[in-house]
């Protein structure tokens, strides 16, 4: 399986390449990508340098242009696609139907991948994107089980890429307005979820309160780990009980089910975290490189080596195993 790794900065790109990535994916420094975080992402020149660094080491670069163009501002997204093609990325990762149509018409030879933000979760949806835009690979929503992925792979004419490690959306991607509801900043339109500019930590007694906009997302006791207040990872009250209503503070880690993912026909593994540092990227990528190499050599895989890198310090295999639902 191909190892597709994140990079939010040139240093991270080099770290990913050096740690054994097959592919590095990045975004331009604006709202055209779904990790439009402050201080992150690539200028055109930086991406050109990044591609050169990767190419001499046999590593591919994909560009994520996976937000939904704002009405009357489509030219910004069109320019991003044009620039990605002329810089020579190996694939462009897109979500918006209008933008996919543009890329197909303008650059018929470009390799297009369907972003997870398009939330193509079934056979007919994937066939649609293949038929209409010639999409060659689909990044599957993190809502599917192994069984469902196997069914899909038997029925679709495109490659599948699945998330292997990192922060997990518990909601169907590209269809979540939670951040927008609380902060006015939206993953689909602005490329941000639970934006840092609206994050505040307050001390209340010996507890820490994390707020997003005006809403309390969590309250931590003195000895608890404090997490970033991503909305769906918060603690809320429902039916007089307080708890992690949507998802416990875990990160996805599929190390334990890598052989199964290969067996159900997955082409590529994606590591989440363009907003994470190069230290994170170096450790996670090399851990997965080792695991994949061991599997290729018929050896057993060591699990749990990345637990210190995960939110809440625990890993989950998420929806891949149906018990999660």
């Amino acid at each position, binding site marked *: 399986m191909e190892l597709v790794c994140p990079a939010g900065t040139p240093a991270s790109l080099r770290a990913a390449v050096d740690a054994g990535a097959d592919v590095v994916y990045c975004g331009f420094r604006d709202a055209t990508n779904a990790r439009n975080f402050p201080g992150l992402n690539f200028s055109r020149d930086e991406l050109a340098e990044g591609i050169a660094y990767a190419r001499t080491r046999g590593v591919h670069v994909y560009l994520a242009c996976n937000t939904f163009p704002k*009405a009357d501002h489509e030219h910004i997204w069109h320019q991003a696609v044009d620039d990605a093609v002329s810089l020579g990325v190996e694939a462009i990762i897109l979500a918006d139907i209008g933008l996919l149509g543009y890329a197909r018409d303008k650059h018929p030879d470009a390799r297009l991948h369907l972003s997870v933000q398009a939330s193509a979760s079934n*056979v007919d949806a994937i066939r649609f994107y293949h038929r209409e835009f010639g999409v060659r690979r689909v990044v599957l929503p993190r809502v599917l089980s192994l069984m469902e992925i196997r069914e899909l792979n038997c029925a679709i004419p495109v490659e599948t890429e699945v998330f292997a490690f990192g922060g997990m959306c518990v909601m169907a991607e590209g269809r979540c307005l939670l951040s927008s509801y609380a902060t006015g900043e939206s993953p689909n339109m602005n490329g941000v979820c639970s934006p840092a500019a609206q994050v505040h930590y307050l001390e209340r007694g010996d507890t820490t309160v994390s707020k997003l906009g005006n809403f309390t997302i969590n309250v931590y006791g003195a000895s608890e780990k404090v997490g970033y207040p991503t909305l769906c990872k918060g603690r809320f009250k429902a039916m007089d009980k307080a708890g992690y209503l949507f998802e416990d503070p875990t990160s996805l880690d599929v190390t334990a089910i890598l052989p199964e993912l290969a067996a159900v026909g997955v082409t590529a593994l994606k590591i989440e975290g363009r907003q994470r540092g190069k230290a994170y990227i170096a450790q996670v990528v090399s851990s997965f490189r080792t695991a994949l190499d061991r599997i290729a050599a018929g050896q057993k895989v060591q699990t749990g080596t990345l637990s210190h890198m995960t939110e809440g310090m625990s890993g989950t295999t998420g929806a891949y195993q149906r018990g999660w639902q």
Partner: protein
Amino acid sequence: MKVDTLSERPKLVMGPVLFHWDAQVKLDFYARMADEADIDIVHVGEVVCSKRMPFFDKHLPDVIERLHRGGKQVVVSTLALVMGGREAEMIRDVTAMADDMPGVLIEANDMSAAGLLAGHPHSIGPFVNIYNEGTLRHFARRGAVRVGLPWELPMESVQILCAHRGAVEIEMQVFGRVPLAISARCYSARAQGLHKDGCRYVCGDHCDGMDVDTLDGEAFLAVNGLQTLSHSYLDLSGDIPALQQAGVGVFRLSPHSFDMVTIAGLYRQVIDGKITSEDLQDRLFDLCGDIDLANGFLHGKPGAIFDELPDRARGE
């Protein structure tokens, strides 16, 4: 501004019932819609969870017939999140009926349904992401006659999309809790320590969704099985004149356990310019009790906010 939008009478739509109401409650609801409500279009069909479908599917032919007798156009809404072979099969079955049911339009709420309906007249629901002209054009070329715009669009985007609508009708929800997210995981079940496969249909316990508060006791969200909704109720009555002027021709009310016939009448009066938004809100509080209202999305602000300031984008 376009003249033709004024000549057409704006349409009022009762959206699909998002909640797992008892079959009898739903039958009564549709009977009132058919016989009493000043509504042009009524949606039927399950959009949230396929596990609920067996409870009501057998009643659908009768409901559709009754709505037709009441002079309503009927729209069959499809599932918002389609996963697995069984659900994909259901979407194929529904979309295959596109040309067989006179007076019935099918609304696609995911890309599988949208793809299968291409070439037939159909509607694209607000669960499908239409943020820009290019995407709208795509659907218009493939037979969409009506599109519901996503809830989070600001007014500027609505105006641009309306300007490029061509022959396509543009629809916006103006009342009801806003669907904010959909998941493979059932949060109604999870809140009660249950698994989706053994959910006991606990989502049916809350006819307008289960209240979700922050740890500081502030009302925040509402959970409806796989779906997460806003706790506040969208009310765009104050924006209806500007939306009409932009070219929005279809206004959707999302059903709740309130007196939806009366609420529909109120929105009709706002559309016709007979009462103001403030009049409508006063009546809403009488009808619905202590609900929060919100309109922030359209005003380019957090969706949870009720923005009383006039919006720049309203023009004039």
